[in-house]
Every structure is written in structure tokens, then in C-alpha cells.
């Protein structure tokens, strides 16, 4: 397990934001702000299934995968049901939400109480907020990187465009509005 530097904020991530991180080659940038990204077993499987196995291997200690206890697995199944049947969900198949549900369950561990959960999917975000978790999407992390002087607004836009070109469904309007916010024009 990674040793936590004093004052460091770690991330627990669902599959989607981590794919965006890989697509836009942003792992070093994100881990400058959030030194370790923790993922549950189903997200690890999903990342490998989607073709990001090599990226995971080269990430080394920047990404740490965790196995869940039986109680956490059961909690995740309950959360997956909540997400699947949430009005904002477009997929009522419970098993299809196990990745984000396991990320939420992992984020409830006491050692992650002052950390952030990375999640982009709307229904999972609502359930996470109801559980009192601190959440952010990938774009939110990029905005903070701009605020901290690690990235320009143009570079933020390029990274979101790169994700979009590779299939992540960030709309043009979404990218433009986030870009304007990064420029301070919102």
C-alpha cells in the first residue's frame, strides 16, 4: 500500500475518468494533484477489457488496485441497484453498474475520508453525493490543474477534445463551456 505524504489528497476512481486520463495522457498531471489513484477489482477488469492493460502496467504505484471485503462487495451490489434504478440512469442492468458501485464502496473506507472520488456518470454521482462522498469528474480535475498553473486553458481543451476523438462522449458544448470556465470567462 502506498505511503501517504502529509497533506496529500488521493483519488478513488471509477473506470470512465481513468479512461479519460489514459486517453489524454494525463496520468502524470493528475497524479501531481492526486498522487495515488485507487481502484476496485471490477474497474481493473473493465480497464483491461477496454484495452488499457499496458497503461495500467506502466502506471506503477500511481494506480493501486484493491480487493474488497465481502461486506464491501455486498455494499457495492446494493449501490449498483440504486444506480441502475435511478431516474438518471439509462441502463437498468445492475451488473453493468458494479464498477462505479465498487468505487463508491471503496471510497467509504475510513482511510479515504479526506479523498476524492472520480466519477463522470450522472446517476452514480447523485448516489455518491447522497452517501456524503466528495466527488469530481475528470474535467473538474483539469480545471483545478489550470487554477494551480499546471495546465493552460488551451491545453485543457485539447485534452478533452482528445478524449472526445477517442470516443468519450463529452459534447462540444461541454468542452467549450469548461474551456471558457478555465479561461475565467464563465
Amino acid at each position, binding site marked *: 500500500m502506498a505511503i501517504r505524504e*502529509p*497533506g*496529500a*489528497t488521493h483519488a478513488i476512481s471509477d*473506470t*470512465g475518468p481513468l*479512461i479519460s486520463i489514459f486517453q489524454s495522457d494525463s496520468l502524470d498531471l493528475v497524479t501531481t*494533484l492526486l498522487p495515488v489513484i485507487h481502484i476496485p477489482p471490477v474497474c481493473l477488469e*473493465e480497464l483491461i*477489457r*477496454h*484495452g*488499457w*492493460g*499496458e497503461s495500467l502496467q506502466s502506471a506503477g504505484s500511481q494506480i493501486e488496485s484493491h480487493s474488497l471485503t465481502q461486506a464491501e462487495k455486498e455494499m457495492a451490489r446494493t449501490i449498483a441497484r440504486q444506480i441502475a434504478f435511478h431516474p*438518471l*440512469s*439509462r*441502463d437498468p442492468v445492475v451488473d*453493468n453498474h458494479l464498477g462505479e458501485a465498487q468505487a463508491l464502496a471503496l471510497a467509504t473506507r475510513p482511510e479515504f475520508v*479526506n*479523498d*476524492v472520488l472520480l466519477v*463522470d*456518470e*450522472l*446517476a452514480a*454521482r447523485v448516489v455518491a453525493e447522497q452517501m456524503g462522498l*466528495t*466527488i*469530481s*469528474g475528470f*474535467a*473538474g*480535475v483539469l*480545471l*483545478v490543474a489550470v*487554477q494551480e498553473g499546471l495546465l493552460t486553458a488551451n491545453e485543457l481543451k485539447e485534452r478533452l477534445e482528445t478524449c472526445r476523438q*477517442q*470516443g*468519450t*462522449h*463529452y459534447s462540444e*458544448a*461541454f468542452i467549450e*463551456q*469548461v474551456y471558457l*470556465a478555465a479561461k475565467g470567462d*464563465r
Partner: protein
Amino acid sequence: MVEQKSIHEPGAQLLSAQDAIQDAERLQGLLLRNRQRAEREVQLRVPFTVIIEAVDQLEADELRLLAQRLEERLADKQR
């Protein structure tokens, strides 16, 4: 061999730009709180002679403030 990449949950509804802006505000606050939490205070033992020497470097206003503080402390001690 290059791995074939596929899309994750292509039908899922994602966050809005306003959500992303709120995320950034929330995350910035969390990072700040965690950094401040790490800055704990430590006690230093300073020799008395160093304090006396430091007085020599004070300006008039600072000396008056110090004198006032010393009078208050003396009054407390004499009670």
C-alpha cells in the same frame, strides 16, 4: 502488439459543464484543507539571550508595543 481500445458505457449520461465547475471548486477546497491539515505547529526552545538580542532589532513602534505587553505581564505577575 497495440491493444484494441473500446468505449466504456457509451449510453451513460455524463455530468454537465456546470457540474464540472462545481467539481473544481469542491476539489480545490479539499486540496487546500488537506494541505493545511499537514501544516501542524511545532514548539521551539529559544534561549533567553536570543530574545534579548532580538529586542535590539526592533523599531520604535515595535518597542512601544513590547513595552506595553511587558507592563501587562509584570502587572499580572505582581498580583
